[in-house]
């Protein structure tokens, strides 16, 4: 089915769809909303569209139930994450029976945030992608609540984004010639002056409510970090469809989940499942948390080991007793890589970066689960995926799996390189106290 083109189709369930939903000439990934509140997504074939009233009503009811469970304190919200980030639910029939007026509850809950984003600094790290950056900056100008500051960190060697940034008003431009996303992120952090720092990437278009929703999430919760939903902009090419539909994209959860000490303890045995917390394309922090846990590890991330500098910071936050909140109401749209070789490279570097972060986490805290993940869970995942790909006749999944295995193999070199492992970044004294010698 994903051989053919797929349209990304946005359906607002709050609108009255009596008969006017367009039919489709190709399959679509339907993303369902209630106004500005994202509810869920589902791919449908052309024959399955347009959806009838009964189908939309049923979807709306199911989504409303999920939102109410995750957002109504009377029903046990917030949900705490467990294995693979899946929320624990403890709903009883007795409490379910107390839920009244759910549709007006949903209307109120879905109302866009009116919080000011004046205390939010946005940091965009970019490298040699001027057209993408221009689009991203344009989307930031249309934010309902403008961010207090927007910082572009140019990670190119020659600073080629400076003209573009000079031409846009209200952008602070910083050049960081040391290659590596972690360097760029750290430079952005030291330039930021606001209490909340939000990171996004140059290939991302934030939703107009993004900054206001981040501000609301930090105001309503004590979490040290907030992550949000990353949706695909388009699925025009085979590589984009594979990334979204086969590899899971950047996640598909539409309810808020709290990742805290309990989640850390529960999943520690096989490497804390921190990669389920979110994606670096849509993450924000209280700036003060970096005083407690240190800056991004410059050995990790794009331009260095490959990725996972984001999840490794979350690991440190959770390890010292902090919490991260996933709030899907803060939405950005990501332009997935269009060509197959970039996707293969991405899969390889994801896995290499993942292994490198596991090594770094093991070294920092001595948690054995990280090693278990490298030598037990990941090989098991490779075998399972290989069998599945034969069973479902998915040769391209096998190709990506090969890249993942390459990435894993090349990630092992970090494990056996004492030099790399000693080059641990400087950390605050508070954190050093928790470290093994």
């Amino acid at each position, binding site marked *: 089915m994903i051989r053919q083109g797929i349209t990304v189709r946005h359906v607002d369930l709050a609108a009255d769809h009596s008969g006017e939903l367009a039919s489709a000439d190709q*399959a679509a990934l339907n993303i369902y909303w209630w106004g500005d509140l994202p509810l869920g997504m589902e*791919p449908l074939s052309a024959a399955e569209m347009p959806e*009838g009233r009964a189908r939309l009503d*049923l979807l709306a*009811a199911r989504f409303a139930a999920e939102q109410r469970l995750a957002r109504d304190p009377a029903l046990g919200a917030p949900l705490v994450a467990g294995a693979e980030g899946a929320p624990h639910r403890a*709903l009883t*029939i007795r409490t*379910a029976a107390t839920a009244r007026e759910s549709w007006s509850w949903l209307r109120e809950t879905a109302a866009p945030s009116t919080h000011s984003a004046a205390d939010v600094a946005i940091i965009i790290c970019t490298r040699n992608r001027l057209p993408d950056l221009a689009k991203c900056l344009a989307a930031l100008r249309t934010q309902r609540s403008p961010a207090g500051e927007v910082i572009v960190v140019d990670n190119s060697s020659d600073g080629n984004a400076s003209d573009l940034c000079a031409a846009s008003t209200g952008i602070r431009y910083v050049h960081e010639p040391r290659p590596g996303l972690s360097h760029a992120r750290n430079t952005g952090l030291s330039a930021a002056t606001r209490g909340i720092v939000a990171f996004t990437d140059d290939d991302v278009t934030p939703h107009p409510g993004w900054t206001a929703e981040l501000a609301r999430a930090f105001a309503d919760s004590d979490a040290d970090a907030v992550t949000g939903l990353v949706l695909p902009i388009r699925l025009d090419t085979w590589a984009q469809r594979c990334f979204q539909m086969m590899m899971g994209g950047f996640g598909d959860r539409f309810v808020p989940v709290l990742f805290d000490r309990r989640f850390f303890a529960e999943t520690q045995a096989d490497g804390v499942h921190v990669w389920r917390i979110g994606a670096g394309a849509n993450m924000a922090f209280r700036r003060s948390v970096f005083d407690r846990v240190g800056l991004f590890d410059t050995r990790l991330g794009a331009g260095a080991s490959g990725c996972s500098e984001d999840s490794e910071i979350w690991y440190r936050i959770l390890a010292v007793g902090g919490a991260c909140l996933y709030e899907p109401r803060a939405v950005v749209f990501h332009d997935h890589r269009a060509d197959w070789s970039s996707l293969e490279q991405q899969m390889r570097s994801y896995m290499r970066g993942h292994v490198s972060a596991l090594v770094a986490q093991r070294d920092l805290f001595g948690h054995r689960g990280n090693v278990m993940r490298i030598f037990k869970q990941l090989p098991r995942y490779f075998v399972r995926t290989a069998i599945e790909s034969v*069973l*479902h006749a998915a040769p391209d999944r096998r190709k990506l799996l090969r890249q993942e295995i390459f990435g894993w193999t090349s990630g092992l070199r970090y494990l056996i390189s004492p030099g790399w492992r000693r080059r641990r970044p400087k950390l605050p004294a508070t954190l050093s106290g928790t470290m093994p010698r």
Partner: protein
Amino acid sequence: MRFAIRDVELSQPLQAIDLAPEEVGIALIGRWQERLVGFRMVRAEGRRSISAEALTAIADEAFAMPVLTAIIEREQPRPPSRALPTLTLAICTKDRAVRLARLLATLVEVRDRSPFAATEILVIDNAPSDDSTREVAASHAGVRYVTEPKAGLNFARNTALANATGDLLAFLDDDVVVDRHYLEGLAAAWRSAPEAGGFTGLVLPYRLETEAQICFEERGGFGRGFARREFQATSFAFPLHPAGAGLLGAGCNMAFDRALLLQLGGFDDALDTGRPLPGGGDLDIFYRVLRAGRTMVYEPRYAVFHEHRETVEQLRHQYWTWGLGLMAFLVKSWRTDREWRPQHRALVRWWLLDQLKSVAGAAARLRPRDLRFRLAEFAGGIQGLFGEYDRSQRRVAAIRDRLS
């Protein structure tokens, strides 16, 4: 060895359940203010009674989310409901008067408060060997009785089609009884999609009193879940659909737009013939409805209770017929529907790999009974793949010649 089946109203506090000595577990049919929301089997693990607290914990885990969804759905603004069409309820039966009587007792009761414009009950007596079926039909008011001398379920279904008067034609097997809200369920399904070509419903166990019945239900039974679903000619989630039409429901509880069935030429006599090819007929008609561009709707409130096979040997035979029926249906579709041949081929390939996987799984876990079931299904499939449809066509041609 049996499971106590309990219908529980979840809006009331649950009471402790005492188990009889031969009962090894409970099967809960959960309802929220009468609406079916879930089914859950729990083994007693030696307990002689299940306390109210334990029962509440089980119910919370299994039913709380569907209850919340049901509550929210009921508050949803609804479009004005349409007037319902006329309905024929057809029961095809052969020499099973006792079971027919059991079904009619439940069916007459729901018919008498039917929301449909008109509701008739039609009994098709298939090649009867005595008068018992006729007598049972005659003992209920307003039950029409028709004989079909050619033995075979799909012969009987076609006779039902020829004799029915309702706009909507619902089929029931004689080994089911209907839920007390069966007709409201069918009405809800029709109102949600009046343009649909067909409807299927939930099939729950009627009793779980033998090892085979428990085993079948624990392996999933006929369960298709408690969420309404719609099926079209293609499905994104299931690339092999509708070649794998078994997802849609089961022949013991299905209904169709009668005009569409006539237009499609009715059921294929060479499938669902009773022995030796007692399967595939439901898959075939679902497939053809979808291929005609019409929707099929699965509605869990449109529910029946099915008497599962009693002995392990009968159950093994049933799995054998599933493999046989599926493959006979695929061979037929491959011949008649050239355009979708890649789908048929892909399904055969998937099925073979999947069967090998479950055979290997059962063997590796040293489960001899499971292994026999899987091998039976596999053997049935292989026989179905190699000429069974042709043999069946020759057999039904002979029956037709003999009786015309």
